[in-house]
């Protein structure tokens, strides 16, 4: 048991720091640090810079262009990225559909899709959930009916994150109604520009567009876009879901948010009260730090198991549950710190081109919208109730 970095790892850390110093535009860093949205272009530019450095495929096998990093290197990378206020890597392409393609896809699919994913040339979104298939994902109804060398797809996907930015969507579709419902599900890749695909916004509690409904009306999808075998989509998707859950935990970004909070408490800007005097509040800050430290070590244990070749197992549910709980604890701390300045809703005051009055302190405008929006983290990626069901069944054998 030891967590000391080797000399090579320390050198790697320097390299990562240098990368973020040199490649991350100040304006992007500022936005991320203040909870502002970055544009699609900023996001793509960042991911392309990672790719140019050979760092886009963090978890990918080397043969497909992955980094081949050890778990220590991944840990270093994600911590430095968060500390530098780099954007998060949008997971849908690089960490969700890619593992499915390189694990279960055909040779031809690998060659066709993986390079563009790695280079962030193509934006992917995730089409799993439906209006009546949320927690009960296997209850999904979007149908794909074989017609010669095409599938004809009809149905509705919902909660599709950043679907309005996406070029492609990976979907779970129903190809059979017989047998167990999990067995009639297939994994299909769909070009969003295909006739019959429509995207409609869903506005979330922060007043912004982040999710969408995606409608499929007689959409013709070539059969070569099917991953693996018909009816095996559920098995493929489950592999992906464990990856998704590890991703959602967000340990490194939470560490960054907490250390930023500490700095605010040490040097309160004008308009912020002196909360260090409030011992109850400080106890809550420290409680969050305790939970986060424990979680960080849980994550390290999972990562080190994964590095010995195991896929993240049901224990990834712990990361999802605790990671999201800690995020929401931190959201509440920020609400407290913002005080009355959590109230003003002046969207866009720190976006490009805004020239109206600004509300200080600088961190306050996003605090409440962020708190509202971030209630999502205990809901998406399998709700925390569902994660606990998984622990009860798969881990405790109940």
């Amino acid at each position: 048991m030891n967590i000391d970095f080797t000399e090579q790892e320390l050198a790697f850390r320097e390299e990562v720091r240098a990368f973020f110093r040199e490649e991350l535009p100040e304006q992007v860093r500022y936005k991320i640090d203040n909870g502002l949205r970055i544009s699609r272009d900023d996001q793509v530019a960042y991911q392309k810079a990672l790719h140019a450095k050979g760092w886009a495929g963090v978890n990918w096998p080397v043969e497909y262009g992955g980094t081949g990093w050890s778990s220590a290197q991944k840990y270093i990378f994600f911590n430095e990225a968060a500390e530098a206020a780099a954007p998060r890597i949008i997971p849908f392409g690089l960490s969700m559909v890619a593992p499915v393609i390189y694990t279960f896809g055909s040779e031809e699919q690998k060659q066709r899709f993986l390079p563009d994913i790695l280079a962030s040339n193509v934006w992917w979104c995730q089409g799993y959930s439906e209006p009546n298939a949320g927690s009960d994902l296997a209850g999904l109804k979007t149908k794909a009916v074989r017609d010669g060398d095409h599938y004809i797809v009809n149905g509705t996907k919902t909660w599709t994150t950043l679907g309005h930015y996406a070029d492609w969507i990976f979907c779970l579709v129903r190809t059979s109604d017989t047998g167990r419902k999990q067995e009639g599900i297939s994994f299909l890749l769909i070009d969003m520009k295909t006739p019959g695909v429509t995207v409609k916004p869903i506005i979330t509690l922060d007043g912004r567009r982040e999710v969408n409904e995606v409608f499929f009306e007689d959409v013709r999808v070539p059969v070569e876009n099917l991953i693996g075998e018909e009816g095996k989509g559920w098995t493929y998707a489950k592999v992906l879901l464990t990856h998704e859950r590890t991703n959602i935990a967000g340990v490194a970004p939470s560490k960054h948010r907490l250390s930023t909070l500490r700095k605010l408490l040490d040097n309160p800007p004008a308009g912020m009260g002196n909360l260090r005097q409030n011992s109850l509040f400080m106890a809550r800050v420290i409680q969050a730090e305790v939970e986060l430290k424990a979680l960080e070590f849980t994550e390290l244990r999972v990562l080190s198991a994964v590095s010995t070749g195991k896929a993240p197992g049901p224990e990834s549910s712990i990361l999802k549950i605790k990671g999201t709980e800690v995020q929401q604890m931190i959201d509440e701390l920020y609400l407290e710190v913002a005080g009355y300045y959590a109230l003003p809703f002046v969207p866009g005051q720190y976006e490009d081109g805004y020239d109206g009055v600004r509300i200080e302190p600088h961190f306050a405008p996003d605090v409440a919208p962020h708190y509202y929006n971030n209630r999502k983290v205990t809901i998406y990626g399998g709700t925390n109730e569902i994660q606990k069901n998984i622990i009860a069944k798969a881990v405790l054998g109940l």
Partner: protein
Amino acid sequence: MDFALNDIQQMLQDSAAKFIKNDYDFETRRALTESELGYSQSNWQLFAELGWLALPFAEEFGGMGGDLSDLVVLQTELGRGLVVEPFLSTVILCGGLIQRHGSDAQKGELIEKVLAGELKLALASAEPQAQTRVEDVATTAVADGDGYLLNGHKCVVLDAHSADMLIVVARTGGVAGDRDGITLFLVDPNQAGVELFNYPTNDGGRAAEVRLNRVRVSAGALLGDKDNAFPALEATFNHAIVALSAEAVGIMDRLLEATVEYCKVRKQFDQPIGNFQVLQHRMAEMFIECQQARSMLYFGAITAAAGGEEAARAAALLKVKIGSAGRLVGQQAVQLHGGMGVTDELDVGHFFKRLTMINTLFGSQDEHLQRLVFKAQAA
């Protein structure tokens, strides 16, 4: 001992419930929050006709002489409708100050207009460095000829955008933090030197940053006596905490109802999600918190009405309970609605937002707890 509503309270509750049901459905409210004014002027007139604007004022000034319990009944119903009309600002905060601190002449003149719906007011009290510490007043009023010059920055002044008049809390003596030397001024927001930056708030309301740059007011702008407004402010905030808590209780009840209803109809795994025991327990906890909050509200209303040292303590205890109950009920209502809970489309999220901001207003759970701890340690 009797917790039943009396006849007047029953009438008040019925008429408010009827108003919400007939004239204030969620989409109507949404349209109002997005309108230029941010609420409905004709609703305001209706409130006047229904006597709601007169509720807490003494009968000698044309009011209904209602007590804090009456106000609690009305505010609970307004909470259920997520009403955005500036009742809290005009009637409870500013009305309360006029009633407690105004001269008889001012009471006669101002209250008459308020209850007719002809005068709206906003309280410019909080300051960036002070927020909810009422005595931390840095805004100054310096004698200038026969009047005063006001300078300062008042933050998050609720409903300032449509106020005909502001009540500005300013320091005429002592230093920030002193209870003595605090004075109230009636200030016309359109007057030279008063600068308003209006914005919507995160819960569907409106507020403003108010900057006072050498604002000249006459001696007649003084509301009540000079230097000793603190007790009136404190008493008014205690009552406002009770009224705000009543709104919160109405919101929590609505959230619980909506959640129970949703869990009965939303099906996953071929059954209503309300079948799952974890969710049943969660809703049982929400129910318990709603009831505990209501009990605390009654305690707070009765105790704060009596005034004195106990009133401030009761208000603080109440605000702590409203904070914790509101947090649980609001967060779980969203959680149990799944993705729908975080949409702008559904009313649930908007109730949740207001409940969140209610915790912040007039001191959060943490702030009040900490003050209670300091007091206990000092004792």
